């Protein structure tokens, strides 16, 4: 009986795994048009596919950015770059994992700052989907620290805008 229950449990778990695996949480539709520009700096996003970040609002409008830094700038002062919109109306935020080069959830990502890898906007926050890859990157590229989404502040973003 116990043996039957255990194999039944395994079967259920296995089938659950197979059912749930393909749809891991809202894969975003990423069709970047040639005319899409980052609302913060005006850069054409299609030129930098490895750095794309995205904010989707509840009304369905979406904006692309040429790096996590500009995404954060828009996030911290939404009305400045898109008058009439506020951060409360944001539905999803995505960033591109630096190693995997695919869009991941921004709010659960790990960001490395202070590294020697520069994005299109200069010093950047490099996003990773888990702490291990972030740590590996930090060691390889002399990163200074790993931050979660909530730890990023406007002052930090400003400090990244230095020239050297």
């Amino acid at each position, binding site marked *: 009986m116990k043996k039957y229950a255990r194999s039944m449990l395994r079967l259920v778990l296995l089938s659950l795994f197979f059912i749930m695996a393909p749809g891991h949480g809202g894969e975003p539709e990423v069709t970047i048009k*040639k005319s899409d520009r980052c*609302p913060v*700096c*005006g850069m054409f996003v299609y030129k930098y596919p490895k750095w794309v970040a995205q904010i989707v609002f509840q009304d369905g409008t979406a904006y692309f950015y040429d790096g996590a830094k500009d995404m954060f700038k828009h996030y911290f002062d939404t009305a*400045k*770059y898109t008058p009439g919109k506020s951060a409360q109306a944001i539905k999803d935020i995505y960033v591109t994992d630096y190693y995997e080069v695919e869009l991941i959830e921004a709010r659960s990502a790990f960001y490395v700052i202070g590294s020697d890898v*520069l994005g*299109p906007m*200069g010093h950047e926050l490099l996003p990773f989907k888990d702490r291990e890859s972030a740590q590996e990157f930090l060691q390889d590229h002399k990163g200074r620290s790993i931050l979660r989404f909530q730890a990023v502040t406007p002052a930090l973003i400003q400090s990244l805008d230095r*020239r050297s």
Partner: protein
Amino acid sequence: MILHPTVIANLLASCIVSFMVLYASYYGVQILRHWDIRSGDELQLILERKTYLISTLLTFVFGLQLLSLFLYIFTADVLCPLFVGAMCAAGTLNVNEFGYPTLVLKIINFILAGIWLVLNYADNQGYDYPLIKIKYLLLVFIAPFIVLETALASAYFLNMEADVITSCCGSLFSAEETAAGLGSEIAALPARTMLWIFYLAMACSLAAGIYFYLKGKGGYLYALVSLLVFGIALVSIVSFISLYIYELPTHHCPFCIIMEEYDYIGYLLYILLFGAVVAGIGIGALLPFRHVPSLQNVLGGFIRRLALASVVLYAAFTALVTYEIISSNLIM
């Protein structure tokens, strides 16, 4: 140095222009000292032959100078992918401290070269070289500016380092209170107010130009007004015209408009603007000579054509700007 064809073209053009201008200035000084149309002696005849050759060469050289302004911003635009943080010419020019000064000097030399070409054309219409001394005096005046520009351009291109992080035009032309620099100050001007100032200034300029074209009075006034309007138009591009072209309320950069993605409209805007100001100032440069006997029959007509050209170019500029504002998705 970055061995890109555009960089080589820039340096080559600058060197050719500098060399020719200095060579011509040497003869210019001789002409200023010894020219006497009535004497028949050997030096005078040699100078007469020489000026024919030199004026022709200088026409091509100053024509090259006019083109080199646009070549320069084209080069800065083309090189921007090489520099981190640069997304357009604005960032490339900021790579070292010589980029923007070179641009300023190129703008000044465009106008000076244009005025020289206008004077030269007028001089060639007279049978006794009526403006020859003025022409070569202006040349000698222009020469140090040309040489300085070549020096700055060389310093800029030869000191270009690929491993610097340059400022993005977003921050160079940002309207933030914390941002410093002329670009930011212009960007911070209230857009609505600038829009009214622009249209008012253009209306005054067109009125003055048309009045001069029809009545022949107020030429000096129009020359002055056309220079002022030129400055106002440049400020307007940064202040509000760029916003409508980009459809972004915070992007004031005057260099992104030359990019392919905006249909190269920046080049057209700048060509119209620079052409108009040279024609306008040219009027002021020629008016003092309208009573010279050998030019009596031709100068009046030429000055009127310059006035018409200036008015038409400014009008076309205004029309293009208006079209961009009306067809833009941006609502301010």
